[in-house]
């Protein structure tokens, strides 16, 4: 380079790429995704301020002024949603149940997205025996029946929430891994990946700088889907009575209401709110994933 170039002004080294900008701007364009995010923010706020919103211990057995157990009380100013057959405050359970639902959903989402992304990237990029091995493991995980597997696993390892999350993650990572793998298979044949090789980029740089950012929206899609699945699964396990009876969750509330025949007593305030909450959180997850699908597959836009 013989000719002398006048120096360029200093460059900012970091800036938002258009993909990231699109990722952040997505909720503003898709009303469903926007609704999903609003629902999540609302639940997150409730979970964070649960102690202030419902200062009563949700597992504490409450007594009336007359000294009797405050069982099966109807909704009132003191007990917003009434009490259970054992005299526990339903409103407090509902508010504190938000915590476990979000904890289960988010931790499962993080694990599923991380494992699925890493496995998909490695499998698709390196191919060969490692791809064959990982994909056969994925096939095995996919062939397990979902709820029975979770019940059996929690039966062996204990019904703690962490074990339910682990079981859900174990079953859900293959879906994301396979889709991400197929995307990597197509991306690694792109000319700009070859260009990176010919300019001397090593394979880790190619994988993480040139390929991974292009599949991140897919990871988000699967994370959002995993939130819903994990919360449904945790609720199902608890509802079926295989959960941890000492922890407060929406599924546990439904199980309590069911086994104490709340429906026959007309205690709708006991089981309708947790059911609605489960539906809201799960649907919000699917709304968000829908929005990210559109970011990832622009052809879906405007349909």
């Amino acid at each position, binding site marked *: *380079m013989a000719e002398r170039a006048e120096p360029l002004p200093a460059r900012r080294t970091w800036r938002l790429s258009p993909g990231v900008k699109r990722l952040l701007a997505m909720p503003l364009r898709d009303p469903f995704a926007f609704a999903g995010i609003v629902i999540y923010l609302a639940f997150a706020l409730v979970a964070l301020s649960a102690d202030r919103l419902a200062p009563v211990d949700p597992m504490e057995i409450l007594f009336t002024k007359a000294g009797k157990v405050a069982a099966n009380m109807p909704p009132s100013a003191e007990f917003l949603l009434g009490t259970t057959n054992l005299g526990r405050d339903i409103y407090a359970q509902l508010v504190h149940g938000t915590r476990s639902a979000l904890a289960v959903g988010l931790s499962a989402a993080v694990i599923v997205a991380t494992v699925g992304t890493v496995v998909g990237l490695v499998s698709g990029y390196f191919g060969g025996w490692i791809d064959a091995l990982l994909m056969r493991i994925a096939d095995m995980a996919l062939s397990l029946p979902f709820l029975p597997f979770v019940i059996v696993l929690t039966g062996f390892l204990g019904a703690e929430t962490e074990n339910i999350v682990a079981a859900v993650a174990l079953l859900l990572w293959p879906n994301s891994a396979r889709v991400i793998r197929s995307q990597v298979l197509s991306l690694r044949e792109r000319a700009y990946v070859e260009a990176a090789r010919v300019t001397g980029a090593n394979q880790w740089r190619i994988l993480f700088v040139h390929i991974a950012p292009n599949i991140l929206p897919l990871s988000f899609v699967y994370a959002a889907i995993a939130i819903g699945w994990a919360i449904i699964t945790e609720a199902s396990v608890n509802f079926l009575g295989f959960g941890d009876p000492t922890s407060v969750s929406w599924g546990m509330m439904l199980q309590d209401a069911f086994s104490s025949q709340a429906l026959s007593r007309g205690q709708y305030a006991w089981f309708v709110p947790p059911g609605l909450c489960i539906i809201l959180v799960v649907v919000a997850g699917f709304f968000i994933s829908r929005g990210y699908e559109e970011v990832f597959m622009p052809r879906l836009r405007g349909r």
Partner: protein
Amino acid sequence: MSTLVPKERALLELRDVVKHFPVSRSLSEIVRGRHPVVRALDGITLDIGAGDAIAIVGESGCGKTTLGRLMLKLTEPSGGAIAFDGAALDGLAGESLRAFRRQAQLVFQNPFDALNPRFTIYRAVAEPLLNAGIAKSEHADRVASAFRRVHLPDLERYLDRYPHQLSGGQLQRVVLARALVLGPRFLVADEPVSMLDVSVRAGILALLREVRDAMGLTAVYISHDLALVRYLCERTVVMYLGTVVEDGPTAEIVRNPRHPYTRALVAAVPVPDADQSRSPLPISGNVPDAREPPSGCRFRDRCPHAFARCAEEVPALRTTASGHRVACHLDG
């Protein structure tokens, strides 16, 4: 071997290079222990002297792109040997491979796909510098001078843009700038203008020529278009179905083609005069399946002159009186 072997050692030497791609096997082929392959390249021997500009011409599927990728060690040969500057590509790894990558670069066919859509133009052109371990403080200067080389004026307008904001001709200049930013010695251009609008092709071709002359590059142009090659290269290699059928000075090949396939290629070059009568192409049909090429001469089933010997014996690449190499029994 060839009259074109230069006095000093060639920059790039290919000896009997073979590239076979495995194809998926049917159950009966697995049972019978067969390993069917696509014979993309079958015994290519070629020397490219320092400072030469050579064209590799042939139909799609003849193996020209595979040959270019082999020259840059983007894929490994199934047999034979390739050496760059006396060092076998085969043995390059780690630091020696990085040194090779600094010297040998590629210009892509499709500039719309050759740049990462998430990288700004500056980042794309600076990437080779980053990979080569050049200090960041030097990047801006070197990117700027690479941009000047490819005549992209108004630097500031381009550097922070993304590929989708540029036109095809601008993108191809950016791709070329990226290839030149490390100051390479060897450049492979794979159909560098075939994806561009006709209106910008001439500009890119002139630029390639100018850059090559200014930097003293050794260049390989891969193309299906003899007319383009005429403008850029002193020497042309004609390929057919994974083999070299003719190799010689471009002027000689265009004026006096020896191989029947080359004659067909020359006859197929468009003529600007629409009224001029043209004789029908001397060949018909398509390139045969590279999994089961014809016996003997690979061109025989499309060749108007084929005779018995062509089916039995593979024609060797012989040097002719006019100073180029031809693989045809007629020219024996």
